[in-house]
């Protein structure tokens, strides 16, 4: 038999944390930023984050908007630092490859809007994977 002695299903408690007023606002803002539904983002967060990170989500999001990606417009659009360091939804390597691909596409002469849309689509996929 393989069962954990002390491990408990934390999903309900994590969901309770995410549904308090300020956290709910932060989740909705992040979902709008990435362009996915709230429910899917909540699911991804509950799977990825531990409880203390979920509690801190709101202030990290606030700090991310203030300090992340202040120099590079492409990185700011994709949320390179925002979604790896401040709200770590995507791991650094994946984000780096998405960023390199997008800048390469823009450098090769494809329209900026198209390249960014493709990059954002990849970020969405990375969040859900």
């Amino acid at each position, binding site marked *: 038999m393989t069962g954990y002695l*002390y491990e408990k299903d934390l999903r309900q*408690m994590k969901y309770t944390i995410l549904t308090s007023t300020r956290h709910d606002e932060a989740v909705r803002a992040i979902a709008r930023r990435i362009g996915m539904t709230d429910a899917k983002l909540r699911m991804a967060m509950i799977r990825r984050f531990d409880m203390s990170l979920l509690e*801190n989500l709101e*202030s*990290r999001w606030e700090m991310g908007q203030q*300090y992340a990606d202040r120099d590079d417009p492409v990185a700011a659009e994709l949320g390179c630092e925002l979604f790896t360091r401040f709200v770590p939804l995507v791991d650094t390597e994946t984000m780096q490859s998405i960023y390199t691909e997008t800048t390469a596409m823009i450098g090769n002469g494809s329209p900026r809007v198209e390249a960014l849309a493709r990059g954002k689509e990849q970020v969405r996929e990375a969040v859900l994977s």
Partner: protein
Amino acid sequence: MKKTVDVSIPLGPVHPCWKEPVRLKCETAGERVLRVEVELGYMKKGIERIMRGRPWQEVMFLAERVCGICSVIHNMVFIEAMEKISDIAVPPRAAYLRVIVNELDRMASHILANFSYCYTIEHETLAMYLLNTRETVLDNLERITGSRINTAYMIPGGVRFDLLPEDAAAMLADLVKVEDEMKRHVRIFETGPLIALRSRGIGVMSREEAIEAHTVGPTARASGVPDSDLRLRHPTYRALGFEQITRTEGDNFARVMVRFQEVFQSIDLIRKCIETLPDGPIRGGGLCRAGEATYSGEAPRGELTYSIKTDEYGRVLDIAIRTPSIMNIEACAHSMIRDATSIADVTSTFISSDPCIACNER
């Protein structure tokens, strides 16, 4: 070569070092800690849910029961948020009395935090000295407010009790005693070679990481985050000429030392308050009205924010509390403890960030 095995070491929820239940799951390679996962939910009482729809007279008492260690500041921030909503003016004497009580509470909290740290690194002698000094501070808190822990001292438009001249004299005499004792304790802590081995250069958090996780209070100030003390923006503290204490090391030693230095600063602030205490009434009165406000104050552990929405009878429609421990515990678990060289440092590093689980989960 010796083979290194990956082990997951759970600490808690009942642990001799934790004063409150929390569970840290440390993923280790040999002795090195790779990753820490924090499991909470042991103290989740849903206090924000209870507060909704209740009159401020009830929420006031609920607010200070968010956290028992720093109950005065929870009371103060909630009341000042209500005053901000309803434009209630505070008499100058009441504003000064608030600062006195708040600083006494801060001293008690900081001394308790340093007690916990010394107890965790097994320097029991210093820990017991500190705990005894804390009792003297609590005596003074009790002399003014009538209670040791949950004081409910402040109300919109003033405070409940006045500070009598004989009480003020007794307090000043006690403060001299506390200052003398604390000077000795700080010397023990600062010069102890074994304490330095256990504290210096352990659990280092850089300034960037501190900003990233939005750490606040002594934890941020020990990492050299400037302008992180909200007392700099409070009108009464500004009148008293408050200045922030900052250190740059960012390790366990710096965090404990910042708290020690702030105790002395609090003593000075209280003395200055008693010296310049204006005469006049202590209660101005006023009516709580409808409105919405976000107000922050400096708790012993850092920035405490209340966002309140009230209706015309002063009932709280919606409330959100952001306590300092949320940020500090998160930063501690994901920045300080990560890459710790020994599992033995996990407990002391965790305690050095002064975690308060009751605040964290509300």
